[in-house]
């Protein structure tokens, strides 16, 4: 019985993380940043609306911001491809990161994607290469990088903007190697077992902190959780996000200030060591 309740809780987190009333990158750009100038395109193929990027300010500090954008209603979702980037999205992200590096500005990224888009065109243009190249380049990007797991951390498509000096994660966000539905379809041969998979995957913020895969949890307000009933009030979250956003803003800002005290070399060594220690094996 206790086991069943735990299962429900993990999967509830997944549903919360996906809830359209949660703030998206564009909301945070209004709530905690100022003077956002959006920059478009990868200069190679096309602009990808699944990723927004540009210059902004946080407490008068100039930073580059990059994040997945899912879209709320059906029109927006189609426009944003449900927050599933194609290679050009990841290449745009890296282009903006390189600009931040060039002009010595910190970078803040927001993760909120079901995953990188699995489609013919994405494969043709090198989805795997685009993700891989970002992983390598972010590992030695010569500027401060703060990563915020905002909602849904969907596998490689999330990680491709997720290599940084500090990884913050919202209390109700999830971060996983595969969606619970995908995992259940493969291992249980039944996507209906997604709730069991969600529990097994250990994808909640508390669990990830225990494995040292993230650095900090950003607590969310109590009513910042959605029972899956038809009685939830629309926009309750955005209205109530104020306090959480304030705290998130403070943590982003303070982390940047701390990191800016380090030399580039110290920062890169710490960033490398953080990821170097990830994993658990037997020897």
């Amino acid at each position, binding site marked *: 019985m206790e086991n069943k309740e735990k299962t429900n809780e993990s999967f509830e987190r997944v549903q919360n993380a996906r809830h359209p009333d949660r703030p998206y990158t564009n909301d945070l750009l209004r709530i905690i940043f100022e003077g956002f100038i959006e920059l478009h395109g990868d200069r190679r193929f096309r602009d990808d609306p699944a990723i927004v990027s540009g210059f902004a300010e946080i407490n008068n500090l100039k930073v580059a911001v990059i994040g997945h954008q899912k879209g709320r209603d059906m029109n927006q979702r189609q426009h944003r491809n449900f927050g599933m980037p194609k290679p050009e999205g990841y290449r745009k992200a890296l282009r903006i990161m390189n600009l931040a590096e060039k002009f010595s500005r910190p970078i803040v990224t927001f993760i909120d994607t079901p995953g*990188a*888009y*699995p*489609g*013919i065109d*994405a*494969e*043709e*243009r*090198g*989805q*795997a*290469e685009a*993700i*891989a*190249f970002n*992983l*390598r*380049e972010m*590992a*030695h990007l010569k500027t401060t990088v703060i990563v915020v797991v905002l909602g849904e951390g969907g*596998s*490689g498509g999330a*990680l*491709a903007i*997720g*290599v940084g000096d500090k990884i913050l994660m919202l209390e109700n966000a999830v*971060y*996983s*190697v*595969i969606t619970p539905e*995908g*995992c259940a379809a*493969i*291992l*249980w*041969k039944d996507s209906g077992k997604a709730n*069991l*998979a969600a529990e*097994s*995957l*250990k*994808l909640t913020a508390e669990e*990830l902190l225990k*494995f040292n*895969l993230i650095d900090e949890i950003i607590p969310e307000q109590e009513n910042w959780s959605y029972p899956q009933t038809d009685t939830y009030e629309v926009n309750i979250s955005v209205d109530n996000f104020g306090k959480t956003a304030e705290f998130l803003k403070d943590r982003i800002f303070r982390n940047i200030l701390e990191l800016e005290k380090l030399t580039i070399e110290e920062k890169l060594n710490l*960033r*490398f060591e953080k*990821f*170097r220690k*990830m*994993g*658990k*094996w*037997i*020897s």
Partner: protein
Amino acid sequence: MAWFRRNKPKIEESNDDEVRKVRTEGIFIKCPECENPLYRRELRESHHVCTHCDYHFRLGGRERLDELFDDGNYEKLDEEITSGDPLGFVDTKPYIERIEAAKKSSGLPEAIVSGKGKVGGHLTYAGAMDMSFIGGSMGSAVGEKITRLIERATETRGAVIIFSASGGARMQEGTLSLMQMAKISAALARLHDARLPFISILTDPTTGGVTASFAMLGDVIVAEPKALIGFAGPRVIEQTIRQKLPKGFQRSEFLLGHGMVDMVVDRREMRETLIRLLDFMMNKNL
């Protein structure tokens, strides 16, 4: 099935079909592509490539390293590193049982084997993944072995060669598996900054988190003919777009045409090709 009958007299009398089948399979392997029978010895000599139709059989990790290094000599590395069960993962079967079963059936400690030796006289650290160990999937142990391989090369100024064969990140280790992609890529960033070569060889199949990390980060990327290579698996794509995929999609030759790999090389010419590449990347001009 003429070959089967022709060879019947050589087989000891037995009414047991199962026994006969095993013995016959002990001598012959049928090519899955052209269905011609191939002597095991003949197949080994042709590097497990069909002598009739050039079909590339899947090859184990150990065999890959044996074929790669000069005179087949190399020092095995990190054999003691193997998977634990950090999440206590249970699906239809406990992960810990899957690991034990994989060790038994494959005779390998993990989904990758690695070694240090010379290739064309060049100091080389090589890894080769093996599909027979939980689908060649990458968990913490695989990630650690590859990272150590790259770090050793960076420290001693060697080259890195990795043969990929994998269904992607290992689900049973959750986000720990995902982070191996970042860990390995970070080690490759340092290798790159040290101006040392990494040659990535993509074999059938290479998909998911392996493709989306080190496999696509080679200075030179070589694919074996007709290997399935991609980020998303064909079934996932078909479900997403709700249509059949074009013929040859995500095969080596398709990737070559789209500029994603440098070349498609027949396994029988692989070692020579790698040596020529290393000569360019490792030898000093006079």
